[in-house]
């Protein structure tokens, strides 16, 4: 724990959902505080955490202006019918710092993130676009390496980047580079996914250990040194999803737990389907390295970002069949069941501890903050 945290939030989302701090050069002498409360009159970093502040911003600013039946569903990808085909479409911006971390970089992350948003909606990617905001002074060699990494990631996912755009901003107006990717995919005719399909009794599955990405990026960003290097899980999930869909199991819905981690996406699923979900703390797969880092830093791995994992809600009767299919894929080898849908009516997520007590597993207000002692 040796480095100063700079403008970035200390932890939490880890996938770089942060807001660029371009206000920093304003004259502080002229500043006054906004109204009390972190959600006052200006954007604060917590608005990018994936927690309640993000949800508030989306609802109050974006949905109120842009509302339409497709956007209002707030799914990872938007689904549209084009003739007889069902198309899914999504977009995501990447502002991660540092640009490279163990197991990936901003380029591979930008490809995998968008491929995964399509995949969990049941879509096989048809093509991606990429838009680059480059900061004056960024070494061309670094840009080349990142773009090459995008190519490698796209090849791995079996998709091409078929449209792109570039803008350059003055030094100090961006943190090296920001990338926005969009993706379009096609859903097979028989696939029906969505939180409205979730039923009481369903099983909750996760495709592997959680929190690797967030802790990896945070360790790289802050120069935290642990005995073992924690490698990001960033990876394309479309291959894994194909095996799951082919298994014939009744999959109700899937999500990739990026910003806000597993706890946040399960809360989103509970909310949008109006059910109660019970998670077993002892069943949650967390690597020892991630667990140790979280213990030291005072973080809860349930809220730490993953970039190559998915949460699936499936009919309990087909849970074993789906798990067998998931474990056949290298990215799903450690898949397991972590909980169940236990009731309807109250939208909430409960966590059962090793001692048999239960507590509410809530959505955080903003990013997780390291504790003092």
């Amino acid at each position, binding site marked *: *724990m*040796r*480095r*100063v*945290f*700079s*403008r970035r*939030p*200390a*932890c939490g989302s880890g996938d770089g959902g942060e807001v660029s701090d371009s*206000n*920093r050069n*304003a*004259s*502080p*002498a002229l*500043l*006054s*505080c*906004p*109204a*009390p*409360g*972190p*959600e*006052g009159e*200006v*954007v*604060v*970093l*917590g608005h990018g955490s994936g927690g*309640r*502040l993000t949800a508030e911003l989306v609802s109050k600013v974006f949905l109120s202006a842009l509302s339409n039946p497709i956007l209002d569903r707030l799914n990872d990808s938007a689904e549209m019918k084009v003739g007889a085909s069902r198309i899914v479409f999504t977009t995501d911006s990447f502002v991660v710092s540092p640009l490279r971390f163990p197991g990936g970089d901003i380029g591979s992350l930008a490809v995998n993130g968008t491929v995964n948003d399509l995949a969990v909606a049941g879509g096989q990617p048809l093509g991606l676009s990429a838009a680059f905001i480059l900061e004056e002074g960024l070494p061309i060699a670094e840009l080349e390496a990142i773009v090459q990494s995008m190519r490698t990631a796209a090849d791995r996912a079996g998709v091409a980047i078929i449209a792109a755009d570039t803008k350059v901003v003055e030094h100090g107006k961006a943190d090296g580079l920001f990338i926005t990717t969009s993706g379009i995919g096609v859903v097979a005719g028989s696939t029906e996914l969505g939180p409205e399909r979730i039923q009481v009794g369903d099983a909750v599955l996760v495709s592997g250990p959680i929190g690797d990405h967030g802790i990896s990026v945070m360790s790289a960003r*802050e120069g935290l040194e642990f005995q073992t290097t924690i490698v990001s899980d960033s990876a394309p999930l479309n291959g894994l999803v194909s095996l799951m869909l082919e298994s014939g199991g009744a999959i109700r819905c899937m999500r990739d737990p990026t910003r806000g981690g597993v706890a946040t996406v399960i809360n989103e699923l509970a909310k949008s389907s109006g059910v109660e979900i019970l998670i077993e703390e002892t069943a949650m797969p967390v690597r*020892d390295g991630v*667990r*140790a880092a979280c*213990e030291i830093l*005072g973080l809860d791995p349930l809220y730490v970002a993953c970039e190559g994992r998915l949460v699936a809600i499936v009919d309990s009767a087909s849970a074993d069949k789906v798990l067998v299919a998931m474990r056949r894929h290298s990215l799903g080898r450690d898949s397991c069941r972590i909980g169940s849908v236990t009731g309807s009516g109250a939208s*909430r997520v*409960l966590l059962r*501890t*090793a*001692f*048999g*007590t*239960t*507590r*509410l597993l*809530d959505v*955080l*207000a*903003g990013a997780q*903050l*390291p*504790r*003092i*002692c």
Partner: protein
Amino acid sequence: MKFLDEFRDAAVVRTLLERIRATITRPWTIMEVCGGQTHTIVRYGLDELLPREVTLVHGPGCPVCVTPIEMIDLAIELSKRPGLTLCSFGDMLRVPGSACDLFDARAAGADVRVVYSPLDALDLARREPSREVVFFAVGFETTAPTTAMAVHQTARLKVPNFSVIAAHVRVPPAIEAILSSDDNRVQGFLAAGHVCTVMGIDEYRPLVEKFKVPIIITGFEPVDLLQGVAMCVAQLEEGRAEVENQYARSVRNEGNVTARDLMAEVFTFVDRRWRGLDTLPKSALALSDRYAAYDAIRRFGLTQAPTNEPIECRAGEVLRGLLKPTQCPAFGSSCTPDHPLGAPMVSTEGACAAYFRAGRLAAAATGAK
């Protein structure tokens, strides 16, 4: 994982609960001093597993919770100065001052940064010699040695642009204040293990002798806490009042002598107002005269104006163990982690935030006492 799983072992927890049940014959009220302990209790639902006779109340041991509002205002004021960087620990940034918090100040353009150690803030000052770097030093005796080391290093290396707002506080005066108050209901204490890792256990002996209450130096894992409760209940039932060390794997009788020596060199005891506990004599650590040059309050000529806390917030009673968070009328309605009225709803160590996050319902909503 070694050193962790054995202290979260369900079978050991069951054994300890049985031991407590077998010992207890009447109601006892026990206070866990540290916010980290409160966090564990609520996170694992330990209070629900204990027999009804044990009432756990939550103490003032959350450093951000007891930092007076005027010190937060002072840090916010300072953060707005041009050319100045204010550093502090993460959960200090969201604690409301009288008008806003440090996150708001940052969003409005102030250079506010989160650090894990005051030594990181000192490194920053050395890397950026053109900026004044101020560390807002909060915490109990646990974190005070790192501030002492940063100040000591600053003097040794003659770093001209680093200073601290010393807001460190001490546990024993807080326990004394709780035990001295007319409305005290606490009969035994689980003292904060990490504080004693630094300070040792001798400071607690006079309290035990004066007030005849058991004080158990206790760790932070579920097994630690239940063992602490078991030791405390045993003393209460037997009519004993002693200092006992449950957290012996970390706490030595004399504490960490190197850290204590450094603290004695850098700090001096001063009176300080605490949120909810008023002014407590010799309860805080200020920089000694020898290190006065690194005191940000003096360096920048700041004056502390006494500030009133929101009337609706009853954090003071919560911090003294007189009120459960859920018994506060504002809990979960006008006071939530998104819109905190007081510090205990902000920090992960704050009792109100711990209750809220675990989904404990307001007394009004459940009809509970």
